[in-house]
């Protein structure tokens, strides 16, 4: 608890005077090459990712409570119906009082709400490439085996059991549970030249477009697919987010 508070204060000091002075501690992510595990574009196997900053952990409930204090139109009683599915901040005991542990990741937030929060911090939601690049980095820098990674993903999607591994290299936490995270471009759009690939969508077959047919790639595909089936208004008890900054 005290650790979280310290981070919270530190984050606040860091950003004081620039934007709403509330954010998690952020981490600088080194630039690098990202090998697409799912070929969103058949002609593009790899992509260069520029350095960026990212929240070390998912946005917490107290972070989000401070945001709605400062931005009343994002309070549950005031938020426009267009921007959520009816479950926005379900469980909060008042407009500004979260349920559960204050440091736990905020959930029941739509994509619209998550974007608004990040914008207020001077950031954005991560792009799909940025977020997946982070997972890739964490796996490599911490020596996580493909099987351990795949099992962690499958356990998370089956039982909501967060992965036991920690990132000791960059100091990031919360990947592969306790929440799925909103991304700026979360829809899985598979391109085939100028056309949309017919294998996408429901009842589709996108497995043929993963780079290798092993468990780790399949686990990653599952995450791509799962995200893609959400609507921007969707809220769920396991759906949160973090922000990135230039």
């Amino acid at each position, binding site marked *: 608890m005290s650790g979280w508070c310290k981070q919270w204060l530190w984050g606040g000091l860091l950003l004081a005077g620039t934007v709403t002075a509330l954010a998690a501690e952020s981490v600088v992510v080194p630039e690098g090459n990202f090998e697409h595990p799912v070929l969103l574009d058949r002609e593009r196997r790899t992509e260069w990712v520029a350095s960026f900053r990212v929240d070390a952990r998912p946005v917490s409930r107290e972070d989000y409570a401070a945001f709605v204090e400062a931005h009343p139109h994002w309070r549950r009683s005031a938020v426009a119906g267009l921007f959520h*599915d*009816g*479950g926005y901040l379900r469980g909060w005991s008042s407009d500004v009082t979260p349920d559960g542990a204050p440091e736990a990741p905020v959930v029941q937030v739509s994509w619209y709400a998550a974007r608004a929060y990040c914008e207020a911090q001077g950031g954005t939601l991560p792009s799909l490439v940025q977020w997946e690049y982070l997972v890739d980095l964490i796996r490599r820098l911490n020596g996580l085996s493909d099987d351990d990674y*795949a*099992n962690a993903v*499958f*356990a998370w*999607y*089956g*039982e*909501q*059991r967060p992965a036991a591994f920690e990132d000791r290299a960059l100091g990031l936490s919360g990947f592969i549970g306790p929440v799925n995270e909103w991304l700026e471009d979360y829809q899985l759009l598979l391109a085939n030249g100028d056309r949309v690939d017919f294998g996408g*969508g*429901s*009842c*589709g*077959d*996108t*497995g043929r477009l993963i780079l290798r*047919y*092993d*468990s780790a790639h*399949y*686990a990653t*595909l*599952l995450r791509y*697919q*799962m995200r893609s*089936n*959400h*609507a921007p208004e*969707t*809220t*769920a*008890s*396991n*759906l949160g987010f973090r922000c990135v900054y230039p």
Partner: protein
Amino acid sequence: MKQMMKMMALGASVSALAALVGCSQAGPMATAGEFEVEGKVYGMPKAEVFREDYRGDAVVGDTMTASPHLAKLDYAGNKTHQVRLDTLSQKVEVAPGVSYTAWTFGGSVPGPVLHVREGDRVVFTMKNRSDEAVLVSEPGKGAAPFYRQMADNPYQKPEAAISPMPHSMDFHSGTVAADDKWRSISPGETIQFEWVANYPGVYMYHCGTSSVLMHTAMGQYGAVVVSPKEGYPTEADHEYVITQSEFYLQQVGESYIYDHQAAMANNPSHVTFNGHVSALMDQPLRAKKGDRVRLYVLNAGPNGTSSFHVIGAIFDRVWYEGNLENEWRGMQTVLLGASNGAVMEFIVPEDGLYKLVDHEFHDAERGAAGALIAAPAP
């Protein structure tokens, strides 16, 4: 295309005629936008996706039963069935000490059996309740017979679980545009659509959301039995539904989770009849000497075949896929690919114990076996 337009026009005029003569019988009669080919109805209205504050029973429908039961169709001709089958997570046991958090339809694996008659219309509603702890052990008054049967024989020891995930429903018994009716819905959303049971048979339903291998292997499937309009040419003394399926589970820590490598290698940890290695051993099917037993057998897969056999019996009649046009006589074994079904009848030759097995014995050893006991009524 021209042909189709003509049919559509025909369909429209048929329904107009029906309206003129005051025919109000619910059933397969085509309505606006629908068309008929040889008495079969196509062109269903668009699916609707919406949000509802529904907390009631996850399975609603008079003819929804728990395997191996099949509901009696106590009506003449055709009718429109209002069917609800919500999708929800549930911890279920598939072998002694082996439980996992399943993705289910209605709270069991396989999900409930839906029984309709050829020509019936189904108005189907499904809410994605994967983000909600749904208790299936305390059904309300309007609940389907499924729940009573589950409560009487809770062999999967169901426990509410939460595992929010988009899901969908694909009925093999329906003929529709899959990108409309079988589309995925997010947790909290409800989908409603219609289909007409154009062909008799034993059909699979399953979640078609990618990755479909994992969604089906996690438990999202079940059987629809469409009885022929004219009935069967035989009189059965007993009717039972058996769904064969594979589980791909590995132990990680205290619990069991999906094993993708095993699923890709078609190397199941368990193969079951009706979702538990002992389902039909602990509660064997019952009959008497001389009875004609009719089995509705579905192989749900998701990967393997079933060589279905009854030890000590020969199938007097087999209707492959459950269609009377596909009749076989004197079959020792019926081969079912993934999602194939069949109606199989045999005469119980004498008092005794009859084992039902997948004659691919590596599957029988992994659980694909059951029992039928023939004895005089006590």
